């Protein structure tokens, strides 16, 4: 279990396997293959409360269901936001949905980032690719409670400048004096004047206190492995590092075993884990 605040929030429906139709209110194209959808709850429901890091099972009717993290603002739970990269059958079908159509939602599920527990510390968020989506709710949360934290640093790596998500929002956040954002891309043409190189290279120069920080890491597993090593080189201990795991899911509630990682179910005991709790399984190839 990742943190005190991980208790599961009341699910949308009494039957946890039943997806409720949400209406698509807005679709925002974030990049050539990634989009955000703003969804409105079915009539009669007030808020959709969730903790930063949790996910929903989204059902494209007639096609299938996939786990997608909630990428919206936990302090404004009336609108549910998901950011999805179209990679396969379900997510590509999702990409083709139009405003006004419905999508099935069940959740929220899973554990959360230790946002409240990190009060008094520096917080360093390290992310790669679509991994920024599950971390965005933490940024909203930390900024809504800004006075309670030390430095807040976001290190974000994308494949190319065109793959950077939430460009306008990052610009706004960058203008704040109380949030440090460092971007890097793996690949660029000469027109790009920012950092080039993998996100792990930013860790060395990043201005957080390694002895009093909490690190939250979200991205592809290889990226997270190298990030953890780099954090350790800086002196961050494993018990202050949190990672979010991805596994294929079906039920999302610990019943089917699809997401099993050793003795742990990623849908229920994760996706957010304290590194010390997942370390053995994380580095095992067979898992």
């Amino acid at each position, binding site marked *: 279990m990742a943190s005190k605040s991980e208790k599961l929030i009341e699910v949308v429906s009494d039957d946890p396997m039943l997806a409720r139709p949400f209406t698509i209110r807005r679709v925002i194209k974030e990049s050539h293959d990634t989009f955000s959808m703003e969804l409105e709850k079915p009539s009669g429901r007030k808020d959709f409360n969730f903790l930063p890091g949790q996910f929903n099972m989204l059902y494209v009717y007639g096609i299938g269901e996939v786990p997608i993290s909630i990428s919206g603002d936990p302090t404004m739970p009336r609108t549910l936001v998901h950011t999805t990269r179209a990679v396969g059958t379900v997510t590509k079908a999702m990409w083709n949905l139009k405003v006004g159509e419905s999508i099935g939602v069940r959740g929220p599920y899973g554990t959360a980032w230790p946002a409240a527990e990190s009060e008094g510390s520096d917080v360093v968020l390290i992310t790669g690719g679509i991994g920024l989506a599950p971390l965005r709710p933490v940024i909203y949360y930390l900024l809504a409670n800004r006075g309670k934290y030390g430095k807040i640093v976001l290190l974000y790596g994308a*494949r190319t400048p065109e793959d950077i998500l939430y460009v306008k929002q990052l610009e706004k956040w960058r203008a704040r004096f109380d949030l440090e954002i460092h971007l890097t891309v793996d690949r660029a*043409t000469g027109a790009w004047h920012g950092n080039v*190189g*993998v996100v*792990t290279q930013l860790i060395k120069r990043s201005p957080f206190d390694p002895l009093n920080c909490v690190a939250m890491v979200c*991205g*592809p*597993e290889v990226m997270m492995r190298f990030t953890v090593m780099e954090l350790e080189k800086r002196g961050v201990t494993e018990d202050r590092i949190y990672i979010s795991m991805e596994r294929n899911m079906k039920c999302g509630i610990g019943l089917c075993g699809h997401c099993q990682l050793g003795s742990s179910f990623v849908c229920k005991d994760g996706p957010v884990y304290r590194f010390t709790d997942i370390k053995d399984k994380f580095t095992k190839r067979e898992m």
Partner: protein
Amino acid sequence: MENLERILSEHPFLEGMSQKHIELLVGCASNVVFKAGEFIFREGEPADNFYFIRHGRVLVETHVPQKGPIVIRSRAEGEIFGWSWMVPPYKWHFDARATELTRAITLDGKCLRTKCEEDHDLGYEIMKRFALVIAERLEATRLQLMDIYGNGLKK
């Protein structure tokens, strides 16, 4: 000189280096400033020095016909760049271009090579530090080649 000595001794790359060796390095060092857009060196030119960046940002890039410049990595404050001065034939493998006003300390590679031959303790110290830099670049390049954000790992 005193100023150069202070700047070098405070640079992360030389952390823990003895005073005696810092003084030897200062003998090969000079201050340089590059304007935004200025090329610091170009592929194929003699690699006679390396750089400690004090402020600014430098892009290491290569020119691909029909595609234009492709950026391989960027270097910023507190970092060093250039290691071709250490290995024959002492030629730059890439272009380096400042993207903003960049201040750096440059070390004359020929001067340093001679000092390293004369004082093997200094040579070993420099080798150890550059070995770390080269290993780190190799690892970073491998990660870049894996294209880890592109299509995910489940493919």
